[in-house]
């Protein structure tokens, strides 16, 4: 097919460049691929490892099984072996690859044998290839070995060829994304010869089964698969190379495949087939799940779809879902939109009903496909190994329900028999079959389609047995009776299944309505939640109500992911659970129960994601640990997670906005402080500079008295400036914690007198009243600091007290000494009583009020507290005016004076 690309203009293909640059970021994976065990993969890998080590590369061996082979064992000598992790499983000690040790050691290149290995149950990942992915993500190059039969997409083929079910599989994408594939190849004859020489290790138990595997036919087939896969890869690399170098095509088939997945057992088969076809065509492919709206999928069908879609993702396909009344049209629309060229569809044996009432999906698709090529895949249920645990669970549930339905149908039919017997005693009815129809419809309406069909057949038998001549036998004498009976059966089955379907759909609708209602309630609840905390509690409570199991929510607090909310509230997470949660947060993927990471953890952790990344991680216990989540549960959970993520995002944004606002407010406060400092420094400076320059420029025109006045002004302002600077220094000393208060006996009366004297000197016009109680005790403290406190308080009283009188008062109160300074100013607003002790806090605007430092009171507080005392403000002090600052210090008895005793 011709390439639809635009004419080549000699430029490299951007996609190819992008893919290459993405590959460059990651560490490199080299896979040693073999057709069967014993071809020498490990040997070849170790040989290579020795060679690169000789070249000086930092190589370590993560895990290698030599199986006691001497040649291989000799190669390990001299290479660094990482310690293995021991793990006990079913009372056996297993040695496992230690992922954490490898990550901690972080060599340049790590050799990890047997990529398809299944890890011990307590490992972080169930499969070794997942360990390898993590190593690659961590920047460690990995060399590993793989047998072709373990490739997921070939599992079917291999089991068909060899008759052996392959349990350990590796997704194809691992091999596709490998940077290099080395094919380790020997001929089947050689391999069989080696087997007979005992050079191929086989465990004793599996020997017989495995020997059947090593036939020339099997080995040739596997070898072909391995060679072809490698050739495909070489092909891909060639194409990549050509694209990258912008070499003229045609080099790409540009085919695109669409696989239609219906909910039946053939789904996985179709996916595998599509993947194989896509690989051989070198084409991209999409798996699409067709969903009829309103169709209620039972658990088994849902499981088919889920596992098929999961498989498609693992095989490297894209997945889509379409629904609509006309599925054929929707499918074709998708195909056109995605530039699909070929469609793969299951050709199913059709039921009697489909034959009677219309074309199958595949037929209809073929009729309308137009330009698309259609492939049919036969969908006879494959004899492939089923998934025992899930199937059993669903089987049990279905069996139980079936028993109930059969019982109900039997009772209904028995009832109908009774009624008919009773009626025929009283009056002669020409056709009793109507009564049985009632029984069938009853079953249909109350218990659904299956009960109705069972009831139809039971009615058919009972009617025949009890009421058709000869009675109490299943034989029928009259041919027209037989006809009537068959018509009855047909009518019963048809009406019963119609009525039953209505019943089933009604149940579905009710269930959906309940889910919708509960979601609606939830979204209303969280839209009212103001903080992230409220949202989280609402979400856990809601999920708990939905699932009936434990639910936890974790979010980052700083570096750590911590439990923020849980229901019931006392749930704790153990170490394994916490690390699953961290995984979910870091990788943005589900972890824990039923996932690829730490699946033995009882919770499943899902990341809650928004455009800004993972905002939280939700862990929930599944309603049934042995079964997958039902589609309804899954839908309800996703909706709740989505809503919660949005609400959390909103709450977090609100918090950030609030923080930004408070930051802005802090900025404003700082601006005000700077303005205030600048005003307080400049005002005295302005007076000094102004007075000095006036004296110089205009002194000649002034009288002697005027000159003295200016000089006095300079002196006073210098004092004021110096007090301000001293205060600033005191403050920084207090803040730096460098202030050491002495704890001496202090004669308070003395200190008060000296503070008052200093105040009178600074404010000659001050009106100051001093009252000292007669029985003043000593205080414990530092006389110098206490004087500073009192002076600052008096200074404040002068500044803010207006022209009124200020008072200083000292007395004893119990074990304490109380000192107070009161002014008669306008007072302080109650809201500001505490704030006045804050640094730089002053009432009013940042300037245009009394000169002061805004430091006085905060220094007082620092000093008083250094002396072990308390300082508070009271306002109004008296007659609705004035401010009183009260200092409370611990009192001590005066020291006994020698010779004072009488």
């Amino acid at each position, binding site marked *: 097919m011709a390439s639809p690309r635009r004419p080549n203009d000699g430029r490299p293909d951007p996609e190819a460049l992008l893919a290459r640059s993405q590959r460059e970021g990651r560490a490199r994976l080299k896979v040693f691929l073999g057709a069967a065990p014993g071809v020498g993969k490990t040997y070849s890998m170790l040989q290579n490892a020795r060679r690169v080590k000789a070249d000086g590369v930092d190589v370590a061996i993560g895990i290698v099984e030599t199986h006691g082979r001497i040649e291989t064992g000799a190669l390990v000598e001299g290479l660094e072996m990482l310690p293995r992790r021991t793990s006990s499983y079913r009372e056996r000690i297993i040695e496992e690859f230690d992922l954490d040790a490898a990550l901690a050691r972080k060599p340049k290149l790590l050799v990890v044998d047997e990529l398809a290995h299944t890890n011990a149950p307590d490992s972080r990942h169930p499969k070794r290839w997942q360990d390898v992915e993590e190593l690659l993500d961590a920047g460690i190059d990995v060399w590993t070995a793989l047998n072709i039969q373990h490739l997921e997409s070939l599992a079917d083929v291999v089991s068909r060829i060899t008759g052996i079910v392959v349990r350990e599989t590796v997704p194809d994408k691992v091999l596709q994304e490998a940077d290099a594939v080395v094919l380790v190849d020997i001929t089947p004859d050689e391999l069989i010869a080696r087997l007979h020489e005992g050079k191929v290790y086989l465990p004793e138990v599996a020997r017989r089964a495995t020997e059947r595997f090593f036939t020339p036919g099997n080995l040739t087939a596997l070898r072909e698969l391995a060679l072809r896969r490698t050739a495909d890869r070489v092909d891909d690399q060639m194409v990549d190379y050509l694209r990258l170098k912008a070499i003229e095509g045609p080099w790409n088939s540009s085919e695109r495949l669409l696989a239609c997945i219906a909910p039946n057992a053939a789904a996985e088969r179709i996916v595998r087939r599509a993947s194989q076809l896509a690989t051989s065509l070198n084409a991209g492919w999409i798996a699409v799940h067709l969903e009829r709206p309103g169709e209620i999928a039972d658990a088994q069908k849902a499981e088919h779809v889920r596992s098929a879609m999961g498989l498609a993702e693992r095989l490297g396909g894209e997945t889509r879902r379409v629904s609509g009344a006309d599925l054929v049209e929707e499918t074709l629309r998708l195909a056109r939109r995605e530039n699909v060229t070929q469609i793969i569809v299951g050709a199913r044996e059709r039921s009697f009903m489909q034959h009677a009432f219309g074309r199958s999906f595949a037929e209809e698709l073929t009729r309308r496909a137009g330009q698309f090529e259609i492939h049919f895949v036969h969908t006879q249920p494959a004899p492939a190994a089923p998934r025992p645990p899930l199937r059993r669970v669903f089987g049990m549930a279905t069996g139980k329900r079936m028993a109930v339905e059969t019982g109900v149908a039997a009772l209904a039919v028995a009832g109908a028999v009774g009624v008919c017997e009773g009626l025929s005693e009283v009056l002669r009815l020409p056709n009793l079959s109507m009564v049985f129809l009632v029984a069938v419809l009853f079953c249909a309406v109350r218990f659904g389609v299956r009960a109705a069909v069972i009831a139809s057949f039971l009615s058919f038998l009972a009617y025949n047995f009890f009421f058709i001549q000869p009675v109490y036998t299943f034989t029928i004498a009259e041919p027209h009776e037989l006809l009537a009976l068959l018509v009855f059966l047909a009518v019963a089955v048809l009406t019963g299944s119609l009525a039953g379907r209505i019943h089933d759909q009604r149940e579905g609708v009710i269930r959906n309505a309940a889910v919708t209602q509960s979601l609606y309630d939830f979204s209303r609840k969280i839209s009212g939640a103001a903080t992230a905390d409220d949202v989280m509690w609402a979400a856990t409570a809601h999920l708990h109500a939905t699932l009936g199991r434990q639910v936890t929510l974790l979010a980052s607090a700083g570096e750590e992911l911590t439990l923020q909310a849980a229901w019931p509230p006392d749930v704790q997470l153990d170490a394994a659970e916490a690390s699953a949660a961290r995984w979910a947060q870091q990788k943005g993927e589900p972890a824990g129960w039923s996932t690829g990471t730490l699946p033995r953890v009882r919770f499943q952790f899902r990341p809650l994601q928004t455009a800004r990344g993972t905002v939280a991680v939700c862990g929930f216990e599944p309603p049934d640990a042995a079964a997958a989540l039902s589609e309804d549960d899954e839908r309800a959970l996703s909706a709740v997670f989505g809503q919660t993520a949005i609400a959390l995002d909103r709450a977090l944004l609100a918090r950030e906005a609030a923080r930004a606002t408070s930051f802005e407010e802090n900025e404003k406060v700082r601006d005000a402080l700077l303005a205030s400092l600048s005003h307080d420094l*400049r005002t005295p400076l302005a007076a000094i*500079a102004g007075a000095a320059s006036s004296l110089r420029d205009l002194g000649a025109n002034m009288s002697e008295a*005027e000159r003295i006045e200016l000089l006095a002004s300079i002196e006073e302002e210098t004092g004021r400036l110096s007090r301000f600077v001293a205060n600033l220094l005191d403050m920084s000393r207090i803040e730096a914690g460098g202030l050491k208060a002495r704890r001496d006996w202090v004669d308070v009366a003395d200190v008060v007198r000296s503070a008052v004297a200093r105040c009178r000197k600074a404010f000659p016009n001050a009106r100051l009243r001093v009252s000292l109680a007669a029985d003043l005790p000593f205080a414990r403290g530092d006389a110098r600091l206490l004087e500073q406190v009192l002076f600052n308080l008096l200074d404040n009283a002068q500044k803010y007290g207006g022209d009124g009188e200020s008072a200083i008062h000292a007395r004893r109160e119990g074990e304490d000494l109380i000192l107070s300074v009161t002014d008669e100013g306008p007072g302080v607003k109650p809201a500001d009583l505490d704030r006045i002790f804050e640094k730089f806090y002053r009432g009013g605007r940042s300037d245009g009020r009394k000169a002061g430092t805004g430091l006085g009171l905060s220094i007082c507080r620092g000093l008083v507290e250094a002396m072990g005392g308390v300082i508070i403000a009271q306002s109004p002090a008296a007659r609705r005016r004035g401010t009183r600052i009260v200092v409370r210090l611990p009192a001590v008895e005066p020291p006994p004076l020698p010779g004072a005793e009488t």
Partner: protein
Amino acid sequence: MNGRRILVVDDEPEIQRFLRLALSAAGFEPIAAVTGAETLKALVNKAPDAIVLDLGLPDRDGKDVLRDIRSFSQVPVVILSARDREAEKIEALDLGADDYVEKPFGIGELMARLRTALRHAAPATPQQARFEIGGLVVDTERRQISRDGEAIRLTPKEYDLLLALVRRAGRVITHRQILNEVWGPAHNDDTQYLRVFIGQLRAKVEREPSAPVIILTEPGVGYRIVERGGS
């Protein structure tokens, strides 16, 4: 100039004290006001010839007081402020203040500003037609400029710009005021053009354009042309 009455508005007693002494020594008659209300009362009752106004007043913002003054009086106002934020100064100048002095200041600076302001407010002398600044002669009747007798050719915009500065010689003129006067109100914020034009003008009128002595920059506020410097 003797006997001119100066209203000093400041709430700092120390500033009031030295200004009172200095102004009277310089031959002015100082009167004092502490609040905005007192200022307006004094302006009406005592008819001062100029006002020295502090922007930080106990009862209201000095800029509001200035706005009230300008609503009914063209008395020269020199702003006195410890605030060093440009925005404040520019706002006050745009509100109609004649000039500003920043605290702390020398008395000489204040006196010079005060005198310039008083002179400009003097009863309208016939429209002055000829200016002489530092050897630069501006003849507004003939729209001719010369320096040291040599004619200088200016573009019409450069001439308008020079004229705007010359008319307010000695006083600061804000960017906005210049733009408004020369380019019209639509260009009030285009200060980058102004810088370019000033550069061109200096290249033509200054002897040493890199060290201008005629057109001075008031950083962040505007420009000031010297009154009679240089010569």
